[in-house]
């Protein structure tokens, strides 16, 4: 699982703790992100339509914005906090702008 997959998954799961299944419904609306209905043996929860880092960063920005549009600034803070431990391995330029 790439680091961007980890970031997207972590954000959706954390939002799920706060807003419930709505977190997955909203994630499905994000362009470039495909939410996978879990089946036995599957590891990933999400797929990106393009695997380039730049496009992946944009998808994550759109995901964060999707929650922010509905629930305001607090939801963006939640997204940032929850990926704090993961983004330390990224160069500043590799971190999606919404999470910087």
């Amino acid at each position, binding site marked *: 699982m790439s680091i961007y997959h980890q970031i997207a998954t972590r954000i959706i799961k954390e939002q799920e*703790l*706060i807003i419930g299944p709505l977190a997955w419904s909203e994630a499905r609306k994000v362009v470039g992100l495909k939410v996978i209905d879990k089946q036995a043996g599957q590891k990933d929860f999400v797929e990106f339509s393009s695997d380039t880092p730049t496009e992946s960063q944009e998808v994550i920005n759109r995901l964060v914005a999707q929650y922010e549009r*509905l629930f*305001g600034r607090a939801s963006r803070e939640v997204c940032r*906090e929850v990926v*704090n*431990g993961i983004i330390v391995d990224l160069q500043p330029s590799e971190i999606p702008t919404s999470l910087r």
Partner: protein
Amino acid sequence: MAETNIDSISHDVAEQLYKQNQELAVRNKTLSLLRELYQISILTIDPKTLGGRISNLLLDTLELEFVSIYSYTPETGPALLGYSQSPKLKESWGSTIGGDPSDKQIDLQREAVKKLLSGETIIDSNLTNIWSGVNDEQLLRIKGFCHIRTTLIYPLMIDGAVRGLLNVSLNREYNDLSQFERESIINIINVIAVALDRSILYQQIKIANEKLKELDRQKTEFVSIASHQLRSPLTAIKGYSSMLLEGSFGPVGEKAREAIDRVFQSSQKLVLVIEDFLNISRIELGTMKYEWGNVDFEKMTSDIVGDVRHNLEQNGLQINFKAFPAPVGTYTITADSGKISQVVSNLIDNANKYTKQGGIDITLSKEGNAIRLTVKDTGVGIDPTTMPKLFAKFSRSNDAGKINIKGTGLGLYVAKQIVDAHHGKIWAESEGVGKGSTFIVELPVSQTK
């Protein structure tokens, strides 16, 4: 215009609801972590296992780089109980220093760390301020590779004293920790302290118990050796005094005979006491040997009663023995004849000691798959408070002193051990002080050895 207002209000409501739900989510996560900690602390008693499990849980839940838990005493300093590390730390520590961080010690002599002992928490961004025995350059390389930005060390306090330390290293600044992470860390400190204290106490009790068991074994061995050493000269004293009384060395004058008789009687009593001690030693060392065979219990009891009848009658006591009629062989059991005979003799001897008037009734009957021996006397009876410890070592009736009873207090204990080895039961009944006692032994008719 109105539509915009409604949108704005509903957006505000959604935001407020989100914030409240967020708080609830934080509480849920904290409670869930605490619940897991409680479960670990309840189900784990060994301090090292406890330290390892708690470290793993914290590392996984709070996404830390390193967690370690130490016990602490002023005499021994910190002693590592358990730790957990992220794959990145494991890799970098292994390639930079070799081994893993568990080899290294928190250095309580360092200025930055000393304040832990007065109960203060340490929040440090520099690993080199904390660890001893590690090259600073190597530590900085590890710190960079794992992005360790903060190390927190908490004293685990019980009753105002430091009993342990919790060390966590993370890849974020302390100020960047989420609300959940901060609340969790603060909440878990006391839980870990209590679990650790309980676990260390258990360990100390276990060690003390093992020492006591060893001391008890040594004592038993000593008693056994001492008793063996005493028995040989006593046998000589008893044998020669008996020969003197029988005239084997020529006639003995009346006064001398009286003295020699006392020597003989006293040595006889001492032999019985030593035999009790030896039996206890054998039972406790597990070296008591049983020689199993068929025993006619009715005949054996009748013979014992016959042997003591004269003495009892001289003391003004009646003794009666009755076996309830039963087909031939009913009272035959598989037993060690010598030891079971010792049990019966002991019960009759006790009844004799504690009965000043009246008598002793002994009956034998068959009860289901067991035969039952009942020794009932009209003696001093048994105080209900004495009853529970009657068959314990060195236990004697509260009234023993009043009627000048001499004994080691081991007879009933030995009797119970012998009966237990025969898969039987022994117990006592009494309506109280002054109302006599009944001792009952039940032995299985046949048994597989």
